């Protein structure tokens, strides 16, 4: 599969090289195989939708070369090198898993090619030598918005249960950060593993502190396990979580027990329910239409939308960069980098983006809305 893809890319590259020199060439890497495939495939579909939505900038055609990294950081590194050195791409976009994205970012920085990351990147870039930005909302912001909602709902005592891994730590620390003297108090720190068969013990411990609400620091299908256990014990309080829970399988597995949980998510999840004056409303509906046209299936996830927003950031920067340089040159790469870092108040389907040198993320609290699960569907809760 990977051989086939790279072969097609190679032949495509040869054909393109002999015809037009002025096309803007984009190298896109995602995980079509391996453990990251369940989100890598939506990322790929999102890029196809973005191509459908906008395939040229100021009359210059955009050429897209897509490679699979098999969820493997070393393959992502090889792909990034190949795209830059052999295909002479003007910009990299990638990839589905955080370790692979960080690996690609290192190559982009070394070879001085701008990169738009569609997974979270951790850390602080060196402002003088920053070649990449990251599209998704950082975990700390996801939790902060949920915690603010708990405050608004006048919740005092919070029980926490999450995964016994880095994600569980991130959510717990985020909740601890908003503790106040008179308001929220996080009273428990219970953990479970993704492959555990039961969380009865942890839930009893959580219920022992008589919480007003329970915060879930899990993700996907297995994030429903504490909710099911809470339901068995007849817990009547509120439940909260983050966008990590949002997928169709979570709703299917959680069933009645997951009803009423409130999570922070990008506005695209509830596009059709947003008020007409919301920045993401029209864009998100356009994105959905383009997605349907490009892939013949409706979109059900938030990941494909990150690809779409990455594409928005690229095309808006390219419009400005084309005024000073020609695609395929070193000057154009540098101009692209400068213009991406100059992004001001650019609305996407997930957020309003403002980038500046010295930080990977460029989103604020407008990037998140609270959605509630009602009768198996997510509804917008302003």
């Amino acid at each position, binding site marked *: 599969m990977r051989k086939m893809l790279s072969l097609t890319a190679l032949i495509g590259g040869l054909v393109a090289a002999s015809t037009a020199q002025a096309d803007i060439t984009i190298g896109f890497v995602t995980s079509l195989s391996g*453990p990251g*495939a*369940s989100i890598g495939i939506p990322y790929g579909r999102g890029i196809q939708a973005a191509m459908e939505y906008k395939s040229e900038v100021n009359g210059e055609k955009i050429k897209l070369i897509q490679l699979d990294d098999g969820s493997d950081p070393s393959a992502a590194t090889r792909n990034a090198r190949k795209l830059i050195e052999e295909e002479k791409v003007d910009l990299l976009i990638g990839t589905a898993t955080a370790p692979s994205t960080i690996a690609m970012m290192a190559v982009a920085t070394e070879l001085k090619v701008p990169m738009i990351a569609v997974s979270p990147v951790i850390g602080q870039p060196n402002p003088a030598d920053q070649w990449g930005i990251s599209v998704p909302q950082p975990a700390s912001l996801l939790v902060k918005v949920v915690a603010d909602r708990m405050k608004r709902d006048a919740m005092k005592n919070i029980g926490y249960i999450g995964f*016994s891994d880095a994600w569980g730590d991130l959510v717990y620390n985020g909740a601890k950060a908003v503790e106040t003297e008179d308001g929220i108090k996080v009273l428990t720190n*219970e*953990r*479970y*593993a*993704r*492959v*555990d*068969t*039961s*969380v*009865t*013990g*942890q839930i*009893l*411990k959580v219920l*022992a502190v008589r919480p007003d609400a329970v915060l879930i620091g899990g993700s*996907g*299908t*297995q994030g*429903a*396990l504490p909710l099911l256990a809470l339901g*068995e014990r007849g817990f009547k309080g509120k439940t909260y979580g983050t966008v990590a829970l949002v997928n169709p*399988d979570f709703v*299917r*597995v959680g069933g009645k027990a997951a009803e009423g949980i409130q999570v922070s998510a990008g506005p695209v999840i509830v596009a059709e329910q947003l008020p007409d004056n919301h920045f993401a409303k029209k864009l998100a509906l356009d994105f959905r239409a383009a997605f349907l046209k490009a892939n013949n299936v409706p979109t059900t996830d938030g990941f494909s939308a990150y690809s779409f927003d990455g594409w928005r950031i690229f095309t808006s920067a390219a419009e400005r960069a084309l005024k000073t340089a020609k695609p395929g040159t070193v000057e154009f790469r540098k101009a692209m980098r400068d213009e991406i870092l100059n992004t001001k108040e650019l609305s996407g389907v997930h957020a309003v983006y403002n980038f500046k040198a010295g930080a990977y993320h460029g989103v604020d609290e407008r990037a998140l809305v609270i959605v509630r699960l009602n009768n198996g569907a997510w509804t917008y809760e302003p």
Partner: protein
Amino acid sequence: MTADIAAILAIDGIATGAVYALVAIGTVLIFTVTRVIFIPFGDIAAFTALTLAALDARQLPGTVGLVVVLACMACAMEVVSLARAGEFRAVPKAVLGYLVLPLIVVGIVWLTMRFNPPMPVRIVLALLLIMPISPLLDRIVFRPIADASVLLLLTVSVALHFALVGLGLLFFGPEGVRTEPLTSMAIEIAGVHVSGQTVLILAAALVFSGLLFLFFDFTLVGKALRATALNRTGARLMGIRPARAGTIAYLLGSLMAGVSGILIAPVNTIFYDSGFLLGLKAFVGAIVGGMASYPGAALGAFGVGIIESFASFQSSTLKDVIVFSLLIPVLLWRSLASQHSEEEVEE
């Protein structure tokens, strides 16, 4: 920790322990007959759950592909080894056993799927599909090295587990599944709410351990299996075929793993890689029983389940650490093999 919390934890632990017990008994069964510590056992249980979920969703499960591939490999190996030995008359029988039988099973599943069968039929289909996997793996992987040391067999078994996890991802995909509960009944025992599913799991574990005990002590086939375990050469001189004994053990073991997979599918989300921890904890239980005694393995597995449940209440982050730390005192006590007291097992 109040009395009713302890009661809830105990019930939860017994339910988890019962699942481990089923897998532990199967592990001991295969070990005593073939000397293989069959690590991929948990994977077999997880694959059963995934198969059942696929059948529930009216899809052809990935297990079909797995069985067909394994059947072709096993049949080819058997035919080649028979041809080398010059026993051409045995070839048709080998093809029938290793290729045609599994394919018939796949055919039955494929045909029945067209009629949207009810839940009990789907469960039987899932078990039927899972049953051939272990005996075929035995033929492909373990039969050629049947006389090797226990350590070598264990190493191969671990490698096989990793191969199976990879195949699981290929055939079942990365998403977890959960099936419909088998029963929605619930009973009250001394003020503690117990779900019907828990009772079912417990009953299955007790029935199976009882049946195995009877099978090994009171039937000729069972005694033949035990004889093979004690001394392969001696058993052969007495007219027992070690290869056949191994196949029977694997079939029985698969059935137990399959049943435990079907029982946990409604109470927990199962992923393609969920089997390893399940198998490992069952293995700890089996070690407590000295890898030899069925009641011992069952007791050990219940102990692991109960300890796990209480550990998750006391310190959820260290839960698995506590469970696996148990192995050390048990192994010490086993290796010293002096007189043992039951109190040590329970702690």
